């Protein structure tokens, strides 16, 4: 991976020097060796801050909505999941393709810094895994869209995305409800899941609205569950399964269980679909299209 870092710095330097881009979105080393935090580099002299290693877990695409009202051209590093996020943002017209210079990274799977933090602080005795939970089910480790690419192409693992969903589905209605209420009762409504999500790119989030106030702000189990249901439905058909919501959750709620269930439903009703794979017209989320033969059952 250090090889990638050197190449990444070289590319960033060239792009900034010849004025192709005004800024580079990448990662830099954080306070601990197992933390690589998102960073912005605007000056060619600063490119040595950039790293590309096995801790670059953050999805940089989620930062792009912050730059929607700028005109600067941006270079962005993109793993498989990040690149799908970028495709979604272009489809949602948050940013245009010509404002981006995408440096793809063929991603072998990242490690979760949180696990290392917990291990280091003694909070958890478990040894940090080689692959973060969010990378275990990854089907698209290689970027789907890029101008330049780093590293060797990777093979996706077995498709087991829906095993957990199937497990929940086999429970009884009451068991399921109790399971979810229990999980969501931990939610502290920090909205980290929303902020980490590329699909959450509205200018004003409906959860911040007061008229009407769609979901109560208190952290009681029902309002928490309601918040998560609405959030999951808002990203239905848009979720790129990057798993950032679940990773960002400080209390470890299995949020992807909701997202994947909706992915399963959308697949069943509208045919197999995975968000953010291509910029073609046909790749627009099925819930954002209207066809006469659309099934009623989604309502």
């Amino acid at each position, binding site marked *: 991976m250090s090889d990638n870092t050197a190449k990444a710095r070289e590319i960033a330097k060239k792009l900034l020097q010849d004025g192709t881009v005004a800024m580079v979105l990448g990662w830099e080393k954080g306070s601990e060796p197992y933390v690589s935090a998102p960073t912005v580099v605007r000056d060619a002299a600063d490119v040595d801050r950039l790293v590309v290693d096995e801790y670059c877990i953050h999805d940089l695409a989620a930062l792009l909505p912050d730059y929607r009202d700028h005109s600067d051209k941006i270079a962005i590093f993109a793993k498989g999941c990040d690149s799908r996020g970028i495709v979604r943002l272009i489809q949602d017209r948050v940013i245009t393709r010509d404002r981006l210079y995408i440096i793809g990274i063929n991603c072998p799977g990242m490690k979760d810094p949180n696990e290392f933090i917990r291990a280091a602080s003694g909070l958890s005795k478990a040894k940090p895994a080689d692959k973060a939970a969010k990378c275990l089910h990854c089907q698209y480790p290689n970027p789907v869209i890029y101008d330049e690419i780093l590293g060797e192409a990777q093979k996706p693992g077995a498709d087991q995305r829906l095993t957990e969903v199937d497990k929940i589905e086999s429970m009884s209605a009451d068991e399921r409800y109790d399971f979810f209420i229990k999980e969501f009762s931990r939610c502290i409504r920090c909205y980290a899941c929303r902020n980490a999500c590329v699909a959450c790119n509205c200018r004003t989030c409906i959860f911040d609205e007061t008229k009407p106030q769609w979901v109560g702000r208190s952290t009681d189990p029902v309002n928490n569950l309601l918040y998560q*249901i609405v959030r999951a439905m808002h990203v239905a058909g848009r979720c790129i399964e990057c798993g950032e919501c679940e990773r960002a959750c400080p209390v470890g709620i299995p949020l992807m269980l909701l997202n994947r269930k909706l992915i399963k439903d959308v697949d069943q009703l509208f045919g197999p679909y995975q968000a953010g794979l291509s910029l073609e017209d046909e790749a627009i989320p099925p819930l954002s299209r209207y066809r006469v033969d659309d099934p009623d059952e989604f*309502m």
Partner: protein
Amino acid sequence: MKSFLQYLGIEPERYQLAWISGSEGQKFADIMTHVVDEIKKVGPNRKLREEHE
């Protein structure tokens, strides 16, 4: 949505869809009666409910 609510543990009877035309008064009354009967069978909703009172 129905499937999603079921997934969360809401009984399917509680959320129903029907297509009734403007000329089908009888069907309207029948469906209303039917829905009320079904929901009477599953009993009061305790889920997804904010604690009132």
